[in-house]
């Protein structure tokens, strides 16, 4: 068993706290059931279900802390894991930055759990794979995709009486569709907490259309172009930038949010005034847990408001040292936008390039958050409001900070997640001027 009810989880955690002889004890119990199905070359390649539950015990004597984990929860195991954590704590060097366990917090539940998603069966997964593969086979195209759904719970308690419990579900689907001759490639991704909001039949048509349309790509000279980034294409760059909102790094002078001569850019106009990014664990479309990894309550707040930096991420230690209040680290990024779809943005574009997806994004220079990466699976030339023809993929070297100062128009945000992002996101399609492509790629 790997999913516990609140009562069951609390009973285990209470036992751990009662067993503790340390100055402080924090126990975290989490579990998940993850189902997946993977397909390639129009065949299912692997499918499986992984169940896992884990208890982490952190015991502390003063500034010394020991951490142990275990995955059996009988009384003898609990006793053993607590004693071991205490033994490690006694051996550990002092960590002057260790913060005391959290006082009792008030967590407001967020709607992260959907029963229908938790109830997904192997047959449903197989149906989704079949719904992806079938139309591709019919159209002489080749599908490769991955569906992963999970239900999970997260619970914690500490020796100061703090306690939290909540369940969550998630579904992630991606599919790449390629032409048999390998000259065209399309892609679609979907993320949802509720399986009812996912439609495989509709989704696969997006990838099929892009695969067909991308087959006769022409080469354009690299350079600065007006681009329309689909939400998935923009999300990778924006999410990457959020890793560098750490207050301590900014205070230490090693962040793009550090100021010449010292201090930070908190409160300053860093982006176009149309840029607003919020965090809100209770957002109905993209809810996340009401606490962060340390158990600190998340709040609804602006990260960037009207282009001004409104938030830097303070760890509890750094907040105390700087006389600031630490709030839970954001779990979602909710970027404001307009009402237009990607297709409507294309209609209003004289000349430009439509980008379906960005790929292999890496930091080139943290000083300016200069990122490099490539377009992939559907890059098209737009003229007079219409997609004229596919173009070869580009490598970009662009900073999201510069990009978000070059906004022409923002469309309607959609929910998504990313391979390399810890955030659930609402990101709009965006039309940007002077986006920097530095070379061509022959990859399809």
């Amino acid at each position, binding site marked *: 068993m790997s999913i516990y009810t609140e009562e069951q989880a609390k009973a285990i955690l209470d036992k751990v706290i009662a067993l503790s002889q340390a100055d402080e004890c924090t126990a975290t119990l989490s579990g998940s059931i993850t189902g997946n199905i993977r397909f390639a070359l129009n065949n299912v390649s692997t*499918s499986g279900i992984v169940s896992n539950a884990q208890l982490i015990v952190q015991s502390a004597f003063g500034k010394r802390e020991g951490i142990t*984990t275990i995955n059996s929860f009988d009384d003898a195991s609990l006793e053993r894991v607590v004693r*071991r954590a205490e033994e490690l704590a006694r051996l550990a060097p002092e960590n002057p930055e260790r913060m005391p366990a959290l006082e009792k917090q008030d967590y407001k539940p967020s709607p992260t759990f959907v029963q229908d998603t938790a109830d997904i069966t192997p047959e449903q997964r197989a149906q989704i794979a079949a719904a992806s593969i079938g139309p591709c086979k019919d159209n002489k195209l080749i599908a490769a995709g991955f569906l992963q759904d999970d239900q999970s719970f997260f619970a914690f308690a500490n020796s100061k009486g703090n306690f939290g419990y909540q369940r969550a579900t998630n579904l992630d689907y991606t599919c790449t569709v390629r032409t048999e001759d*390998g000259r065209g490639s399309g892609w679609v991704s979907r993320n949802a907490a509720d399986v009812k909001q996912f439609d495989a039949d509709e989704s696969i048509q997006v990838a099929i259309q892009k695969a067909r349309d991308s087959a006769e790509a022409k080469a354009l000279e690299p350079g600065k172009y007006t681009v329309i980034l689909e939400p998935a294409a923009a999300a990778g760059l924006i999410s990457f930038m959020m890793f560098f909102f750490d207050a301590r790094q900014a205070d230490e*002078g090693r962040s793009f949010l550090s100021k010449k001569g010292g201090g930070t850019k908190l409160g300053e106009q860093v982006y176009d005034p149309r840029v607003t990014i919020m965090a809100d664990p209770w957002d109905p479309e993209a809810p996340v847990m009401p606490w962060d990894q340390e158990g600190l309550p998340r709040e609804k707040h602006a990260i960037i408001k009207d282009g001004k930096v409104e938030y830097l991420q303070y760890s509890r230690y750094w907040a105390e040292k700087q006389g600031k209040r630490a709030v839970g680290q954001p779990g979602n990024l909710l970027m404001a936008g307009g009402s237009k779809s990607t297709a409507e943005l294309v209609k209003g574009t004289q000349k430009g390039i439509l980008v379906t997806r960005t790929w*292999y994004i890496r930091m080139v*220079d943290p000083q300016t958050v200069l990122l*490099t990466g490539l377009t992939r699976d559907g890059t098209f030339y737009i003229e007079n409001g219409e997609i004229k023809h596919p173009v070869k993929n580009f490598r970009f070297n662009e900073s999201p900070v510069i990009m978000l100062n070059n906004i022409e128009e923002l469309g309607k945000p959609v929910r998504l997640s990313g391979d390399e992002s810890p955030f659930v996101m609402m990101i709009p399609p965006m039309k940007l001027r002077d986006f920097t492509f530095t070379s061509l790629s*022959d990859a399809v």
Partner: protein
Amino acid sequence: MDRRNFLTMSGLGLAGLMVPFGRVIAAEELVSTLDVAIKKAIADTALQAARDAGASYCDVRVGRYLQQFVVTREDKVQNVVNTESTGVGVRVIANGAWGFAATEDLSTEGVARAARQAAAIAKANSRLQTTPVQLAPVKGVGEVSWRSPIARNSMEVPIKDKVDLLLGVNAAAMKAGADFVNSTLFLVNEQKYFASTDGSYIDQDVHRIWAPFTVTAVDKASGKFRTRDGLSAPMGMGYEYLDGKAEHKYVSPNGVVNYGKSYDMIEDAVAAAKQAREKLTAPSVKPGKYDLVLDPTNLYLTIHENVGHPLELDRVLGYEANYAGTSFATLDKRENKFQYGSGIVNLFADKVQEGSLGAVGFDDEGVKTKRWDLVKDGVLVNYQAIRDQAHIIGETESHGCCYADSWASVQFQRMANVSLAPGKTKLSVADMIKDVEKGIYIIGDGSFSIDQQRYNAQFGGQLFYEIENGKITRMLEDVAYQIRTPEFWNACSAICDESDYRLGGSFFDGKGQPGQISAVSHGAATTRFDGVNIINTARNLG
């Protein structure tokens, strides 16, 4: 893909709780092992249960995976974590299809249940399968064992010694002018027992070590900051890698010290602090075409991305199309003797180089490891393939590069060590640089990005030096090279001899869905590439 996350954790981002997987244990448990007789009994239970359930083939991996992380910044220890994960993974072929199941329950019934589950999954999968699995034959080897040839088990070194080393590194860097320093020790021990219906019982003890650091220099007045990462390589070695012996140092013509079979972390940290400060005022590169002289600390990552990955057969065939991508190096290219590089380019794969991350006696499907050619005299000649792929490229045996990152993960084709053979004629780095009129000498790995078919790549580095008329003149900044794989390797004009051959490596290479990591080394000597496109990466945020 996981690599970045792990690197982020090892650097500035890692301060709090870090429990990668498994259960966290006391240090003394890191030096214990499971009794071989117990492992054999577990394996026999699974093999029999699989046969009884109708499997035509079964392999069992009883794994105990141990990790230790020591994480510091400046004068503070941020974290010491010991983890262990023990369990058994059972893979079977039934009705011509694969099935896999894994469990932490090592009781007779628990193991047998996993074997039956694997067989049931195989039978279910067989209904969707169009072609039955075809395995290249492997002869059983009976009861054998293999161990990384280490001199000192890192897990036996007291935590205090490790903490003292890292805090010593940090203090030396700070004294030499660093504003900040993060240093980490990653230690891994895989105790793997493999058994199969082919008649093999293989006990292996694999060790790996990595000691990365990052030094930061800040100029508050200008708001500028620069970092310099350590020049160590992750290795398939024990704690002796940190001995820093004089005979393992490689001093470049301008005095930069690189390292081979052992590493002087404190010496490198001192150099890093000075160089990070020098970077703050180094001139920005003028973009254009340059001849590149790439130190192995830089070239290893390029080999990894644009030789190792595109020559993985599963990518070539399309099995990774949705995530990691496919490959430009299609099967027809091998048939047509595709010119991957210039005539002096010889790239080989292996799982046997001593001290390498990939070295094992047998892979995770019981195949004895070996070395084989990928590119010979510039021509593409082979790929990396495992038992169920060998027939696709007309071979009768697996290359022995099958790997799973845990007992709970199903094994699949992973990159072997892929290395550039050193030049056959005597050539030192100094002599190579003497012939370069307009070039850049690059040391250390930096930013890396490559497309999904492995054509277009961009790489940075740690240290860049301008070469003018055969001489190294000054440090440069804001350098990245953009390449197209075949053109890059065909522009290879000189390779230093084997006296300069060293290993670099990737500790956390990611692949697959769900993702798995693996560790892999890449050997090279300093190599010259002519007329490579250099871009300037400086930007202004206003």
